[in-house]
């Protein structure tokens, strides 16, 4: 009995490692579908809409990559992952890339052998409490019961924050955001903590969002971005430069509506290189010349994706803040297309 379990585990591990060895770009092209890991459901970032179609900020990255590689933004198989299953899914080759508001950390990069291709959202961990509690600062949370998604960096930040401030708390570990929401609303925990963007997204789905406040403290740095496995740099480059293309497009004013016009009439050599009318950047990536044009046309440039899914016009209502272009005083900055 024990042996068969061990065999099973070893087989899975063996197959997993075997699958990881081949070139992901070729695999994806041969399969005709991109397997993209996303959350199990966080409105604004990745969640199926009323028609069962995945929508969101992270989803847009998957669609852009699919458009660039497969010439079809809908050729994506979305694989919902929890905080716990996401890394195994990626390491085992079950998914080709992970776009699941995942924090870029040293140990995930170095020890778990993943390559973060960039940052698509600069976030920080915050707390949400019911307004009725009258709490105005996270430092007043001494003795509180805290709902926390297990297997995340936020779990460790939380322990550090309370230790540093010498106050106590009771953690309630939960698996998914939906579960956290349920526990929080039932009063089984006093406060819910996760990335501030996630809290805003969660609060937007409440019946009375106004009854809940986000505390001012941001207790950690959470640079969120898509990631791929170590050791397949060609594939890493494809995902990295697809993300950079979206960012550069916003910087250069290329949008999903004016992209064809820009490609035809531009005099700006940077735009021409970005859209493949000049130079051989696509070829260097192992793709065709129009790869980035398709990626941008899929869901729009970075700014459009942001505004459409989580921006101030949406129920989630996040300001650009740190996620503004560097030209507007933010941190969003792409290396040049050259």
């Amino acid at each position, binding site marked *: 009995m*024990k*042996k068969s*379990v*061990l*065999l099973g*585990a*070893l*087989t899975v*591990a*063996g197959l*997993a*490692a*075997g699958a*990881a*060895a081949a070139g992901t770009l070729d695999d994806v092209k041969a399969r005709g579908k991109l397997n993209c890991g996303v959350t199990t459901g966080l409105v604004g970032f990745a969640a199926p809409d009323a028609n069962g179609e995945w929508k969101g900020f992270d989803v847009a990255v998957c669609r852009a990559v699919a458009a660039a590689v497969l010439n079809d933004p809908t050729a994506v198989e979305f694989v919902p992952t929890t*905080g*716990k299953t996401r*890394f*195994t899914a990626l*390491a085992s080759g079950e998914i080709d890339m992970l776009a699941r508001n995942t924090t870029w950390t040293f*140990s*995930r990069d170095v*020890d*778990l*052998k993943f390559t973060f291709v960039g940052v698509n959202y600069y976030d920080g961990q915050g707390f949400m409490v019911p307004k009725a*509690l009258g709490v105005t600062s996270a430092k007043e*949370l*001494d*003795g*509180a*019961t805290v709902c926390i998604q*297990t*297997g995340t960096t936020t*779990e*460790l930040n*939380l*322990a*550090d924050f*309370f*230790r540093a401030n010498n106050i106590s*708390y*009771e*953690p*309630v*570990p*939960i*698996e998914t955001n939906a579960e956290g929401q*349920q*526990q929080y609303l*039932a*009063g*089984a*925990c*006093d406060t819910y903590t996760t990335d501030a963007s996630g809290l805003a997204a969660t609060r937007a789905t409440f019946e009375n969002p106004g009854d809940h406040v986000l505390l001012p403290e941001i207790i950690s740095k959470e640079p969120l971005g898509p990631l791929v496995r*170590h*050791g397949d740099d060609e594939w890493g480059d494809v995902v990295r430069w697809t993300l950079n293309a979206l960012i550069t497009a916003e910087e250069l004013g290329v949008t999903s509506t004016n992209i064809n016009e820009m490609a035809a009439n531009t005099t700006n050599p940077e735009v021409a290189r970005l859209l493949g009318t000049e130079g051989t950047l696509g070829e260097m990536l192992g793709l065709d010349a129009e790869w980035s044009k398709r990626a941008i046309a899929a869901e729009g440039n970075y700014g459009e994706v942001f505004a459409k899914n989580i921006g101030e016009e949406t129920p989630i209502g996040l300001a650009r803040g740190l996620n503004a272009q560097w030209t507007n005083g933010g941190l969003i900055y792409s290396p040049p297309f050259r």
Partner: protein
Amino acid sequence: MTTLTDPPQGSFHLSMLINDTRYRSMTFQVIAFILLSLSVGYLYSNLAANLQAQGLRIDFSFLGAPAGYDINQRLIEYTSQSTNARAAIVGILNTLLVAFLACLMATVFGVFAGVLRLSNNWLVSKIMAFYVEIFRNIPVLIWILIIYGIMTVSMPGARPYLGENPEREMLFGMFAFTNRGVYSPAPIWGEGSMVVVAVFILSIIGTIGYRRYATNLLYKTGQLLPMGWPSLVILFVPTIAIFLLMGQPIGLDLPDPLANRFNLRGGIQIGAPLIAIWFALSIYTGAFIAENVRAGIQAVSRGQTEAASALGLRSGRVMSLVVLPQALRVIIPPLISQYLNITKNSSLAILVGYADVTATLGGITLNQTGRAIECVVLMMLFYLTISLLISAVMNVYNNSVKLKER
């Protein structure tokens, strides 16, 4: 016809390994063993090679590193600065705690429902049949979620109990029932409290001694001593007397509604996840045990019951003195596997956030360190060890109740 010829003493042929019954089973076992070893060896080398290719290796040093996360339910001292190994031990103890509690309660439920299912009262037996069929035919996972969901939604939070003029009064001023758990008073062991405890233990021994003496007296001389009230007197009077004489050394630490604005402080808190998993495992496995008990009772021949009734025993006594002791022989072996099921099913505790070993070592530690293979191997070893231990202990018990053959 009746003479036996000696087996041919010929030379050994290779084909005899297959054709000769003396060697055949051995041959197949050796072949199977070699194949098994080869496949295990292949898988292991495959794993090692692939890990090597990814630059990963099996390494247990993460166990000594600080865990970095907190655990809400712990039986031993633990902070976020404790090691991963200690977090694993906290988880192991929590697993053992819930397994122990659930085994006890499932046995109670099971025996109760199993006996009552055979009741002559139509309503009682049908209710028990309903219980058994409903609970054992719906997966335990769903029961855990249902029970936890009901607790979370139907019970109040901690806040209504807090403050100077709370919305809700604590039961007897001591117990609070919230969706975070049940708060109850904790004993404070003052000076001299150990004397009281010692007296109480002596009283228990004294009670057992008295009952044994009374039983022996009954068997030897037929003289019947009262059992009920003297037992209670021996059990409680000396303890209460010494408790009062020593000046009440054991106090109560009541849950304090004023100490904190979020939660009750002090006393003992039994977390909602523990209650949910405990109750769900008990009631689910209890349904299976009920069927074991019913089978055991029905295996005792009807003549035994009739003979006992003919001797004038009341039906309760028939059950406890004649039927159940014989039924145990049939009940115990499947009961062992039910206990093993409870222990293994307790790994579902992760669902409701109970920090068992699957949640700490196999969940958070695995996740934060990324050491999946190491953590899973350790967990497998733990569950295997504990299952074999339970099995061994129960087998000892089984040997003590099984039919003595001479």
